[in-house]
């Protein structure tokens, strides 16, 4: 009996130390992950000198920084460009890719399956390997230095088709069949029966596509080579590599660029995670 109690106590002590150890690790890691965010927000309210001298508290210079950011540079225009490109990409990509996925899944045939497998293979090609010939295509279409050049290549992504197709597998076929019996045409069925049911999938895909477009850097850097049309990441990159960087203003520009993603993440966390992991289930 006594040894039993001892044993249980031992196990408990081991369990407790293990728990404390877990908390310490998670605490340190969480701090490392979150601190740069704090520093970014705090720094955006400071003067450049205060940041350089190592002040990490929240300051009172945010109005000044906002003024500088929106007056001195064409930051607002870059913001507008990014928003326009990201929204247009999202709308087009979701429509076209989900239609294709529906076609592949619901109207599958031998040839379509083969084609789909070929498409999946292209997913393995790194973008870096395609960007130069893709740039040639953009020049040939005379889309160079136009905002639409950032939109069009990501309108039909194989990943999105794959993502939608995975979720259409689970869609109840009886619903489609009964609508057909009622005489609705196929596009109507898609719009008024399939789409409403799949809204969570669309939300996840929208978040994925929007953030990918909003954050895209290398491709706009290539196609938008003239300084008239810039997107937000390009603008931030230029700001940070200027000869006399104003740290407060740069941090504020990062805050403005990151805030939409953070807001979307916290308000739609479920969809956000579903969007990431849904495709591999």
């Amino acid at each position: 009996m006594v040894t039993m109690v001892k044993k249980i106590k031992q196990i408990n002590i081991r369990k407790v130390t293990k728990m404390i150890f877990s908390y310490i690790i998670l605490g340190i890691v969480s701090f490392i992950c979150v601190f740069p965010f704090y520093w970014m927000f705090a720094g955006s309210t400071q003067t450049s000198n205060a940041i350089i001298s190592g002040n990490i508290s929240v300051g009172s210079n945010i109005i000044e920084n906002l003024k500088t950011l929106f007056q001195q540079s064409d930051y607002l225009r870059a913001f507008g460009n990014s928003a326009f490109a990201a929204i247009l990409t999202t709308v087009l990509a979701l429509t076209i890719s989900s239609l294709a996925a529906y076609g592949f899944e619901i109207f599958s045939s031998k040839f379509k399956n083969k084609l789909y497998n070929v498409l999946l293979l292209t997913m393995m090609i790194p973008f870096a390997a395609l960007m130069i010939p893709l740039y040639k295509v953009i020049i040939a279409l005379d889309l160079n230095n136009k905002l639409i050049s950032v939109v069009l290549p990501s309108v039909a992504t194989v990943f999105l088709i794959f993502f939608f197709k995975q979720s259409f597998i689970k869609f109840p076929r009886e619903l489609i069949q009964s609508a057909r019996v009622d005489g609705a045409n196929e596009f109507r069925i898609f719009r008024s029966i399939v789409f409403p049911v799949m809204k969570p999938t669309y939300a996840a895909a929208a978040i994925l596509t929007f953030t990918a477009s909003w954050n895209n850097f290398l491709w706009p850097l290539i196609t938008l080579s003239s300084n008239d049309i810039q997107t937000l990441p390009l603008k931030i990159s230029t700001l940070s590599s200027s000869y006399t960087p104003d740290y407060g203003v740069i941090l504020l520009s990062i805050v403005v660029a990151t805030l939409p993603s953070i807001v979307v993440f916290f308000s739609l966390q479920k969809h956000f995670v579903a969007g990431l992991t849904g495709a591999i289930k």
Partner: protein
Amino acid sequence: MQSLIKKILLTIKSLVVKIYMKTRAIIKNLLGKISEKRRAIIIGWAFIIPALIFITVFIFIPMIYSVFLVTQSCRGIVCETDFFGNIDKLMGDPQFKQAFKNTFIFFIVQVPIMLTLALVFAVILNNPKLKFRGVFRTAIFLPAVTSLVAYSVLFKMMLAPDGIVNTTIEFLGNNPIGEFLGIKPVGWLTDPFWQRATIVIALLWRWTGYNMIFYLSGLQSIDKKVYEAAEIDGANKLQIFFKITVPQLKPIILFTAVMSTIGTLQLFDEPFNIIAGSGTTVSTMTLSQYIYNVSFVNIPNFGYAAVVAYVIMITAAILTVIQFRLSRED
């Protein structure tokens, strides 16, 4: 601007209308004559064709075009056909070798550390008795929300010679213990070794939580009974981890490994934004950066850039095959 938007929208609209009318006409024409089964196949194509047009123009044509591009030796817009010229150049190009070495170092150092950390954090977080799990999970995932450029610039500022990180290190090292341990500020952005360390640390910060989410969702789908049975059989934690958790997560580990490999091989935003402009960039120039330099910074040579691009693609393919093989063993 507005007129541009209008023009674009009108073009898109007219295109969509044209495609719609055409397909509709074709379908109507054929519908009466053919069987139910054929009908479904044709309607299916109507769903797929818009995507197929875009994929053809922006994926298939570039793929085919790159095969042609490899045979071209260019100075600016003047190109001449030289079948093996670019490959010869590649073999004797020290800058390419350096870029390949850098990229490979990032891959071989960063990917294993990141995936191990992600797996360990996921296992710790998967303990149902742990409090504040949601808070920890959100905190560790949060870096994945930032854009690559934003966090790169953030890291550049934090790791500047007189930045917050070096100030903190100086503070920690400014006492007998710190001096004994040799804690002193380093040139994160200027010293060749620390430049690479900076990139690896930045990548770990950005992507560990992202990969952790995949493992967490995988862990939740493992049957609890398997663990219970193992515990009854007297397996210790380490055994459970290596004999149950890792094998069960194998497909997800493979997926994250392949994705991380492809991602690391085309690394661009981080070295471009963190290191560039801080003196020498030799030790962090990646293959993607080299492609960019060859195409847009020096005298443009798209043909040669296409060859370097093939190196990325072939390396990615080889590493992916190796990873698939490794995961099939034992």
